[in-house]
């Protein structure tokens, strides 16, 4: 089983390189700003969000019927439809289809679902070469890393580092960092892979129940090449990717790219409605925990996520700590909601990797109340006994203190006095994580409650600690 991952430690390690952390923050803030300009350019933006949210709520509520409708319509178009209960079943189905072709070379366009199912390693141990064809994904694949962001998988890598990677794997000139030169090298490399491939795998952005068709959005056209050059196309999708009608698609297509990258629409929005003559088209519909989320009253709306990544671009924690600090296939706010649903213990630190600023909730194009769901996860983590005893004990002690106003007032007076009198080294040390980088407030002599009693009720105050200082202070 995977070990428990702690976000604070990984985040601290990333932030220790302040210039990289700042650069990452700036790159994502640039995307968020582009998104703002695009959203501003549509007077109906909030209406689109509301409509999208309602469509998704309806879809999730009626998911079994909508899935069956999709299956029937896709089959009528000659598509092979497969159902997978979990990641393992998904991987076996995909491997089986590839084996039936006696194929060993696969090209794959971007699909978070196949990341979630860890498809690549499964195929690789079974002797299949899988090449990620999204440029960012190919870069992280060469480097043996995971995507750090669901839309911008290599956003954590600088162009100089891409140059080093390409020099090693593609034989480009050492030290090269010109994006055009590097992109051309990647293009030539990927072209040969496209031409050799026997099977193409893509994800699915939206599947339309009414038509049995589906849509894949890319900026590089790599899904089109991957789906068109090989004879067999396998499309892998989570069951939540459904929308009921073709007309609903217009809402989501307008929201997706604007939210994701600040483009009005992705460069390629490709519609697939059945196999080409003499070719095969397979769709694998995967549950892998989605039904469980659908059954929960608290987190159901998270299934409406269209994987635009806007919550990551806006999240002040994500921007500074980098996507890998989440140690999850889907990082950032939505990942911090979805990951604990898959394995609460392993991902228990993620709902706390959040200042509850609420920016993710307001940026989300389908209005998932992300920061409230993160708060709900904290309640579940605490009630499942997954919080360190130090934290629960501190909270219980605080609660007891606050239930007794006199003891609270006394503790406050003692604390303020200690802050004034104790040597600095007693206050600023490792036991006080606040004070490692921040000064503590200058403690006042008198609390407000004490002032109130003296000035408004005219009674002398017994904080237990009322001292000469207090009188001098006035």
């Amino acid at each position, binding site marked *: 089983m995977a070990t428990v991952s702690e976000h604070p430690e990984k985040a601290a390690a990333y932030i220790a390189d302040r210039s990289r952390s700042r650069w990452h923050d700036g790159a994502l803030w640039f995307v968020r700003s582009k998104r703002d300009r695009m959203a501003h350019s549509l007077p109906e933006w909030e209406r689109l969000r509301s409509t999208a949210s309602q469509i998704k709520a309806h879809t999730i509520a009626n998911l079994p019927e909508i899935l069956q409708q999709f299956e029937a319509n896709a089959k009528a178009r000659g598509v092979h439809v497969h159902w997978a209960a979990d990641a393992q079943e998904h991987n076996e189905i995909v491997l089986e289809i590839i084996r039936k072709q006696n194929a060993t070379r696969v090209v794959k366009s971007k699909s978070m679902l196949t990341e979630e199912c860890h498809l690549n390693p499964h195929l690789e141990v079974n002797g299949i070469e899988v090449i990620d064809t999204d440029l960012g994904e190919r870069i992280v694949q060469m480097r043996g890393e995971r995507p750090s962001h669901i839309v911008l998988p290599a956003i954590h890598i600088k162009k100089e580092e891409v140059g080093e990677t390409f020099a090693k794997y593609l034989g480009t000139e050492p030290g090269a960092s010109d994006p055009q030169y590097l992109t051309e090298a990647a293009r030539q490399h990927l072209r040969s892979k496209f031409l050799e491939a026997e099977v193409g795998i893509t994800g699915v952005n939206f599947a339309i129940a009414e038509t049995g068709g589906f849509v894949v959005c890319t900026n590089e056209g790599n899904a089109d090449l991957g789906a068109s050059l090989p004879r067999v196309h396998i499309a892998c999708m989570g069951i939540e990717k459904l929308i009921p009608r073709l007309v609903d698609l217009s809402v989501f297509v307008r929201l997706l790219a604007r939210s994701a990258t600040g483009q009005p629409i992705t460069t390629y929005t490709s519609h697939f409605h059945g196999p080409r003559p003499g070719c095969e088209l397979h769709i694998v519909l995967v549950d892998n925990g989605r039904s469980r989320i659908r059954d929960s009253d608290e987190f159901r709306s998270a299934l409406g996520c269209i994987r635009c990544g806007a919550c990551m671009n806006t999240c002040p924690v994500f921007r500074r700590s980098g996507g890998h600090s989440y140690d999850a296939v889907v990082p950032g706010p939505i990942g911090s909601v979805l990951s604990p649903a898959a394995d609460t213990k392993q991902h228990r630190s993620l709902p706390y990797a959040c200042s509850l600023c609420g920016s993710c909730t307001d940026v989300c194009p389908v209005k998932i109340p992300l920061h409230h769901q993160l708060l709900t996860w904290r309640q579940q983590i*605490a009630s499942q006994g997954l919080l360190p005893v130090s*934290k629960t004990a501190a909270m*219980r002690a605080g609660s007891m203190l*606050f239930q007794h106003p006199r003891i609270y007032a006394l503790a406050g007076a003692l604390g303020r006095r200690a802050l004034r009198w104790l040597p600095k080294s007693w206050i600023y040390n490792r036991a006080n994580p606040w004070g490692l980088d921040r000064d503590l407030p200058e403690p006042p002599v008198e609390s*407000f409650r004490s002032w109130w009693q003296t000035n408004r009720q005219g009674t002398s105050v017994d904080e237990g600690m009322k001292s000469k200082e207090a009188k001098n202070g006035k």
Partner: protein
Amino acid sequence: MRVGLFVPCYIDQMYPDVAVATLELLEGAGLKVEFPAAQTCCGQPMANTGCNDAARPLAARFLDLFDPFDYIVCPSGSCTSMVRNHFSDLVGNDPRLASIQSRTFELCEFLHDVHPVDFSGNRFPFRVGLHQSCHGLRELRLGGDSEQMIERPDKVRSLLAQVQGLSFVELQRVDECCGFGGTFAVNERAVSVAMGEDRVQDHLEAGAEVMVASDMSCLMHLWGLISRQGSPLAVMHVAQVLAGRSPSVSVKNSIKPKAGNVL
């Protein structure tokens, strides 16, 4: 009309002048204000950690103490939001809850919507960087945020804008979180500090002399960084600005004598 003054625990203990300034504003507006002295904390630190069992008795105490008042006013968006938006997780079956929620207001919201006060006689000749605290902005909707395309009156800013001599500097990131986030500031120290330093930097680059916010908790964190850096930036709670404090006075937490006829 009875107004109950809801003073967050850390303001009571560490920033009493913010509470005094709040009281002066409310009394100056002709209101009868009471401070139920048995109040302590609304339970937000516990609830935000997920420890609802520890927060529940504090929410219940709050209802007992503040039920008698016509209005409950608090100089913190975060603590107000706790009562209004999160108490239902704790005491949702209490018949008093909905009514108390509808009577609980953040200070600027109260002075803007419920009991409008004119501050045009005030003077504050400083360049102000307004730090829009997240809970006030995105949970109480004290203004419009940069994520949503919805025009909303900016209640904190419009109160400050009445004050003579006060000018606003324009920040690069108008409503970015400061990184305090309650226990987040300690749990996720590295991220919290990085966020805070960036926030301070934005204000410094914009030429702010005084950073003003409606939540002292944000300012506690930001001042801690400013003080450590030795940066030339004062911090003030909006109540202190509206009550006529000067920046040099406000950074000292001790209570000042009444600031004369400021209203």
